[in-house]
């Protein structure tokens, strides 16, 4: 492994360990010991952008959500740099307020998720009787009329298609009919100066591959000028006539 891929791998793991841009921002705030109520916009924006830029440089697939946040932070940063225009008595809305609200909300739910995880930890060790046994037994659970959801129907459909018995396999022999083989057959079956119909050449109930092979052969023979073809009207029988050139050339 080259150094470059090693670095890219660590970075990928790092970015993937975050549950989105808000998670990454919270991490940066905690790392730099920043109070969520007093975010130095320029500093945080720089740190965030550095992270994203590194990921982009390493040619990682950065989810669009991260890029949207990068744009938002850049805008906030530039706004913070500009002198604020103050309309009489009205205070300029704090550009960080919405971000702060998002961060606090997300942090709250992340904490709940952690609590849920602790409950999960405890409760997966506890077994009740007999509900769980049924749930995991894989047997179909009876659903009351009107209670089936779309998901239930999809599950049922999926299990049906899984159960479909395997069709008995059959080996299909592929018969190869080369153009040169066709030509030598035709050489024997078409007498000089006489007409023969295409139907006669391929015979009755021919395989599709046979029709195609002979048709291409006829086209090849026309190109060489070894046969002439006649057709009375579209889709009617094709009559093939051998020319003198066939015997001369070959």
């Amino acid at each position: 492994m080259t150094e470059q891929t090693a670095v890219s791998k660590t970075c990928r793991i790092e970015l993937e360990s975050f549950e989105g841009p808000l998670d990454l921002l919270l991490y940066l705030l905690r790392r730099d010991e920043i109070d969520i109520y007093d975010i130095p916009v320029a500093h945080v924006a720089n740190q965030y952008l550095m992270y994203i830029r590194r990921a982009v440089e390493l040619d990682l697939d950065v989810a669009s959500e991260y890029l949207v946040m990068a744009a938002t932070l850049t805008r906030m940063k530039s706004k913070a740099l500009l002198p604020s225009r103050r309309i009489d008595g009205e205070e300029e809305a704090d550009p960080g307020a919405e971000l702060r609200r998002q961060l606090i909300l997300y942090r709250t739910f992340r904490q709940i998720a952690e609590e849920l995880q602790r409950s999960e930890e405890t409760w997966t060790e506890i077994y009740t009787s007999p509900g769980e046994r049924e749930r995991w037994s894989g047997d179909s659970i009876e659903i009351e009329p009107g209670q089936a959801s779309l998901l239930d129907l999809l599950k049922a459909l999926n299990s049906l298609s899984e159960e479909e018995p395997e069709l008995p396999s059959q080996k299909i022999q592929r018969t190869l009919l080369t153009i040169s083989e066709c030509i030598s057959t035709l050489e024997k079956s078409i007498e000089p100066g006489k007409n023969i119909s295409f139907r006669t050449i391929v015979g009755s109930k021919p395989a599709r591959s046979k029709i195609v092979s002979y048709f291409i052969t006829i086209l090849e023979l026309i190109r060489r000028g070894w046969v002439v073809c006649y057709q009375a009207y579209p889709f009617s029988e094709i009559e093939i006539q051998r020319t003198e050139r066939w015997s001369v050339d070959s």
Partner: protein
Amino acid sequence: MILDRLAREVEALIFASEEPLSIQQLCEFTGSGDDSIHQALDRLNKTFSDQQHALTIIEVAGGFRIATDSEFGDVVSQLFEGRKPGKLSRAALETMAVIAYSQPCTRMAIESIRGVNCDSAIRTLLERDMIRISGRMETPGRPLLYSTTKTFLEYFGLSNLDHLPRFDEIEELLGMSSSELEERDLFGSGEE
């Protein structure tokens, strides 16, 4: 302790029931009042612990159930090997948290809180029967609404939705404007 008739009836009912039995059902089937049922449950659990049984009666998803002690989780899990689904991912847990507190809610609402696409997390939760589609919001596009299920309560050992931690505070938080938020810090600003 020798168990009385009522306690043993309660024990039998809970053991044989497919679903968690509510206090009302226990009252109805035994012909006793709330208080006597609660006392019977206490006597049963005391007997279980006194005699060092591996079982307890717990309250979950709106009713009572007989459950094994977590101490025996490893042993019992062998019964369900390969069938018991794995633990939920962080993305699924976060999505679960948002749905639990703001249900019924749309995918958009979840994504605006988490700041990321939640499609696969929602799909996982639907497949595991933790959430269900509970309707559509009557707004343009009529997006689907998601709510939690009884399986969710059982999985996390909650007896009902009111037992979710800090329920009221989060409801307030969700409806709060950003300026109001600044005046209130639920978790203390020093935490992050």
